[in-house]
């Protein structure tokens, strides 16, 4: 047995004894019903998501399927100089191809995470989104890690059908988002208020998160 293994076993043994040293006060995890705030019936999910995402400082552009490419093109034109590198990190191959075409010559390779630091825009799709909090859920399932946090601009494409009502649904639904090596729930642009409580965005992650919401 390695020393590492024996240390782990020793900890387990001590924890076992410690647990027994006091009476068990909670035998069953209580119902979490009160935790849920939103259900499919209580809200129009796309509207609520758009409102909540805006409330935490992300920008939302609502389009239909036909308007998607144009919206992404406009966002790139707004945010990225002609020579700014763009990384596309998509699980959806079709979307990836379309976004890559829009990025054109600015497209960066997405097989080297070190290069992410040279990119100005990361375009991703999402595993799902959460209406209640306006959050995006992005995992490393089919995406290069951190394409959504390293570049200063994050463009996220969300389909209305991907919106879950409540955070609770992320943990109860059948999505495989949490099976990935890394999953991030994003609820706004990177932010700090460490200096005198003044809010500054873009401290480590993106200063702007642009959501294209496709209905």
């Amino acid at each position, binding site marked *: 047995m390695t020393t590492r293994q024996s240390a782990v076993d020793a900890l387990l043994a001590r924890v076992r004894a410690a647990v027994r040293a006091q009476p068990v006060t909670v035998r069953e*995890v209580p119902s979490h019903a009160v935790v849920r705030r939103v259900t499919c019936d209580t809200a129009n999910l796309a509207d609520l998501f758009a409102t909540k995402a805006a409330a935490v400082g992300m920008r939302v552009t609502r389009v239909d399927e036909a308007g998607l490419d144009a919206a992404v093109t406009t966002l790139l034109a707004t945010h990225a100089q002609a020579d700014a590198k763009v990384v596309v990190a998509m699980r959806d191959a079709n979307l990836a191809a379309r976004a890559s075409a829009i990025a054109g010559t600015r497209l960066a390779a997405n097989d080297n995470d070190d290069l992410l630091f040279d990119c100005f825009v990361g375009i991703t799709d999402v595993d799902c989104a959460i209406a209640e909090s306006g959050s995006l859920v992005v995992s490393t399932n089919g995406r290069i890690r951190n394409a959504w*946090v390293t570049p200063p601009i994050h463009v996220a494409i969300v389909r209305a059908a991907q919106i879950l009502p409540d955070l*609770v649904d992320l943990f109860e639904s059948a999505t495989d988002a949490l099976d990935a090596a890394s999953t991030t*729930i994003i609820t706004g642009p990177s932010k700090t208020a460490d200096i005198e409580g003044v809010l500054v965005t873009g401290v480590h992650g993106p200063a702007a998160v642009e959501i294209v919401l496709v209905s």
Partner: protein
Amino acid sequence: MNPLIAPALPFDMKPRAREAVRDLKLQQFVGNATHLKDTQRGGIFDRDFGAEYDALRTVARDTKQYALDHLDELLERFIANAEKSGATVHAATTGREACDIALSIARAHQAHGRAQSCVKSKSMVTEEIGLLPAFEAAGIKTLETDLGEFILQIDGDAPSHIVTPMIHKDRVATAKSFVRELGARYTEDPTELTMIARAHMRGLYRAADIGVSGANFLLADEGSAVICTNEGNFDLSVGGPPVHIVFVGIEKLIRGARDLAPFLKLLARSGTAQPLTIYTSFVCGPRRAGEHGGPKELHFVLVDAGRVGVLASEKRDLLRCIRCGACLNACPVYRKVGGHSYGSMYAGPIGAVLTPELERAQGGANASQSGAGLANYPDLPRASSLCGACYEACPVKIDIPKFLLHDRTRLRERGLSPKSEGATLALWRWLAERPTLFRMAIGAVRLHARMLGQKDSRDERAWLTRVPGPGAGWTQSRDLGVATGESFREWFSKRGSR
């Protein structure tokens, strides 16, 4: 380690508290920030949970208590699942052991004596175990990536709040240290300062050999860790370096993602009045085959450092704490004395009960600190007006005042409380069992005031400007008004019953 949060023991809180109360800037920064956060916390819970806020807290309390009551099962499950995901799990009994584990991981990756560097995202437990000094001693240069922690690091300062670590500092101090340490041009603009720090850190992320972080939750079902940040620095520090080490206290375990929602919904609302932290990141094992980015090795260092002892004690409840900082923001004493007065990285109400307890549970681990616990922090249990604001604010309903009282009893038992005060209380109790004597004693106080006090022109009261014995602290800044006219009992009996 920084003496601000790892002071010489036994720790005397009073001089620091006195100094803090006189520090007008500190009063202003800490006072404003804590009041604001406390008010906003109330507002967001009212808006989002209304009357169900209390029920939500009860759910969180019981869910976390369940985890503690079954921590052995959960720990076993976590270890198995984390290993299945490809992570390596270590266990450390003491802070020193935890540091040694990290050092040996670092050494295994060292190429021919080349100096190594580390990027670290915010973690209370690494402060607690003294990881940075250990890394520095071994020549590993560590970058604190949380902006607040970074500013404290380059200033040789220490965190004074568990969520907003530089609550005690202002932009001017930051501007000066950026000029001095980073060669930046002088600016007091928080946005510009933040961008200077961002630019400085970007290159360091890319070059780092090791990433280090703490964790907010460990999920037994999934074998993964959950880390909450607003800046995104955790994602960057885990994404780049080939090795990542998560240091985590064993009390962070919950059953799994199925139990996570109440805590996530409470944590950011309680701490910073946000619906969720900007980034809630899940890490499950190292990077997988064919993936780009992410650590090739992921290590969990499960830290005991007194926690198992707390688990076994009647203070098990304290381990429910999710480090949201709400009790600090709500605490009148914290607002006045600031974090450094607590002599620990855990300041405020939770720190006042947790610090001596972790210390006690580790007793003997460090020879110079044996005896441990309250003997080393005799002021902490007393530094409270027992106002109960912390209990009211706590998302997992830790009854902090109850534990403060508990500690006051132990102080008394160990002879660590002022003797004269104990004698006065014993006399008081003795008199209180003898109603006639008790009334005479009250009469004597009133007589004393009548003879020696300053008469009040408005009512039948006299003001004492000096009180002897344990009451001396009172008249240091206050007078004592004693009613000298007809006593209540005289009045009551004279008017007869009706």
